[in-house]
């Protein structure tokens, strides 16, 4: 029933149609939106595929290592390769990444040594000691909190006249957080060069997307902050790449932030810390999404161009396994972390109370 003074339903009628999912490559690896097909070189296309395959192996190995007790906290990434790596592929070396805890692949490809990523998983402080020149922040554990920090980093870039951007990622659950809103609103008000990603993998731990919000899309949350927003097929590496590239150009040109929702799926559990996905989703749903797999469709696309083969893929998989083995060895060599380590890395100069504690633990540790 529409009202007599204002029409509550009419106001919203068109929202859904205005936020259609942007896609370039369909699940069969066919270009359905040729107008937008990016002009990437053969080498670049192969490199992006290599990273996606490599990261799938890294995910499988990380899960095994976690089960063996050789890794600590781990959030599986399989299914999100296009969303994570194609967005990263559109960035430049001097861009800043503010990851969530599932966004380890992006920061590894941005320059964090893999062995450090393993130490992060183990909760070792060395894992969060980022090498000079690698523009990343440690993965954020608080849901959505990185959005506020990204607005701040982006404003800093703007104030310094930088030509780089700040990029951050959260999930569908994160988009309901107040921090999410304050972050995008602040960046919008100051036209800060930021790109905000919502990787909508359909479940906030176990909460399905459609009971997360009444909004038809998560992209439209950008309306509340008055910033451009778009929904993208997050299983389609080309669509994610193009959206990110465009958003980056806007940001660098001083046109402000963009909100990008990538529709994707995680094949694994929320994290390896005891979550059982069979309790909140069915095999049928899993199978539906498996058909949309980003690696499968990109493989078809590249094979069509004569750029990819089984041998090539095997080579990447073997190389990944080898490097992962080396990295875990390096991680094992890190010294055991002590209480005095934790006290001494926090301050340039210790306050008196911590000095006292430092001495107490120093004595205990030397026994």
């Amino acid at each position, binding site marked *: 029933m529409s*009202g*007599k*003074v*204002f029409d*509550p*339903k009419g*106001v*919203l009628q*068109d*929202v859904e149609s*205005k*936020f259609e999912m*942007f896609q370039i490559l369909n699940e069969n690896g066919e270009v359905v939106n040729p107008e*937008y097909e990016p002009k990437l070189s053969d080498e670049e296309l192969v490199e992006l595929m290599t990273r996606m395959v490599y990261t799938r192996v890294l995910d499988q190995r990380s899960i095994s290592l976690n089960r063996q007790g050789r890794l600590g906290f781990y959030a599986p990434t399989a299914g999100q390769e296009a969303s994570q790596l194609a967005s990263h592929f559109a960035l430049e070396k001097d861009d800043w990444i503010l990851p969530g805890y599932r966004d380890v692949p992006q920061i590894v490809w941005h320059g964090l040594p893999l062995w450090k990523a393993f130490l992060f998983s183990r909760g070792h402080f060395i894992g969060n000691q980022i090498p000079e020149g690698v523009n990343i922040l440690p993965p954020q554990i608080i849901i959505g909190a990185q959005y506020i920090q990204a607005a701040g980093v982006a404003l800093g870039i703007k104030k310094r006249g930088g030509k780089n951007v700040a990029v951050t990622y959260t999930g569908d659950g994160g988009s*309901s*957080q*107040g*921090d*999410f*809103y*304050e972050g995008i*609103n602040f960046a*919008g*008000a100051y*036209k800060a060069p930021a790109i905000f990603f919502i990787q909508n993998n359909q479940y906030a731990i176990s909460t399905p997307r459609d*009971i*997360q*919000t*009444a*909004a*038809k899309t998560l992209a*439209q*949350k*950008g*309306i*509340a*902050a*008055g*910033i*451009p*927003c*778009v929904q993208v097929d997050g299983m389609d590496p080309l669509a994610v790449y*193009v*959206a990110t590239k*465009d*958003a980056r*150009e*806007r940001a660098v*040109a001083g*046109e*402000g932030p*963009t909100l990008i929702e990538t529709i994707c799926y995680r094949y694994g559990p929320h994290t390896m810390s005891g979550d059982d996905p069979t309790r909140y989703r069915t095999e049928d749903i899993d199978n539906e999404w498996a058909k949309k797999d980003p690696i499968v469709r990109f493989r078809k696309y590249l094979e069509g161009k004569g750029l990819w083969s089984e041998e090539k893929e095997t080579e990447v998989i073997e190389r990944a396994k080898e490097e992962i083995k080396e990295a875990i060895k390096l991680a094992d060599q890190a010294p055991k972390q002590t209480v005095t380590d934790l006290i001494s890395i926090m301050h340039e100069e210790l306050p008196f109370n911590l000095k006292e504690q430092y001495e107490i633990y120093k004595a205990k540790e030397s026994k």
Partner: protein
Amino acid sequence: MTQKAKGMPKLFASVDTSVKELVDLEIRTATDTAELTKDKAKSMYKSMEDIRNFEENVKRFFTAGEIPGFVHLYAGEEAIAVGVCAHLSDEDYITSTHRGHGHCIAKGGDLKGMMAEIFGKATGLCKGKGGSMHIADMDKGILGANGMVGGGFGLATGAAMRNKYKKTDRVAVCFFGDGAANEGVFHECLNMASIWKLPVIFVCENNLFAESTPQWYSSASRTIAERAAAYNMPGVRVNGKDVVAVYEVAGEAIERARRGEGPTLIECVTYRNHGHFEGDEQSYKAPSGEEKEWAEVDPLEVFRQYAIENGLLTEEELDQLREESVRDIEEAIEFTKESPEPSPESLYQDVFAD
């Protein structure tokens, strides 16, 4: 939005335009078919006069140093509280703000108890322990003024959830300012209210300044009402100096909520006659031009004219209500002056049940 600059990537150019078309940005004014009875018109006008007189007196006593603490005056925004609360009974809830006197009066808060509360007297609504920013009256459904910017969102959403859970047709109204609309809790509560179709009405009193910060400076969005689209919630803008317009729009939103159709976001465009707080120099306000013209629109005069033109009330009747109001406020002041201070022992009361 002027962001649609040349050279902008096509992908976002199209999105940007669609966002513009999504929302209705018209500022509503009263329609010709507003249904207002003579009694309703009387009580609404009396309530607006009460707020105005109350606030002008509070200002006078605060300037004279007779009121402890801090006060934020509602004068100029009367039409919003009155237009919305005219649809509510004691069974419905409201949450108020730091600028809360108007909401409490419009919702039926006792003038004597309120004045005494602001003076910190033992006879105050909260026994003198709350003061201006913490007036509450549970019997009237007033869940409290709030010193926290955006503090009412969670309370109103929770109260609405209670109403739904108990299967009542009661509603909750959350009053908040344009500044509070930038708070994270706005996002969290509108999202939750919309997904659960809670009977809550979010009423933004956009008086153009968050303290001294104009709205355009603190968000890239043009209006507060359009933000509702992010939650699949209807949003509407209304002339906040026109009590009949507010009454109509709020009536429809409240009816929707009572029918179980969920929340609405209403943006009432208004202006405060005084500073953010008493003592504010207000150097950010425009001395002339469009803003000044808007500032000079008096919601009480707007209603007087409407009532006379539509044959609802005569000038004599309106004047009579005005005099009545002056007398009521004088009585409240007298009552306050005669009231005792709270005893030191009372500090220990009303904190723990046992």
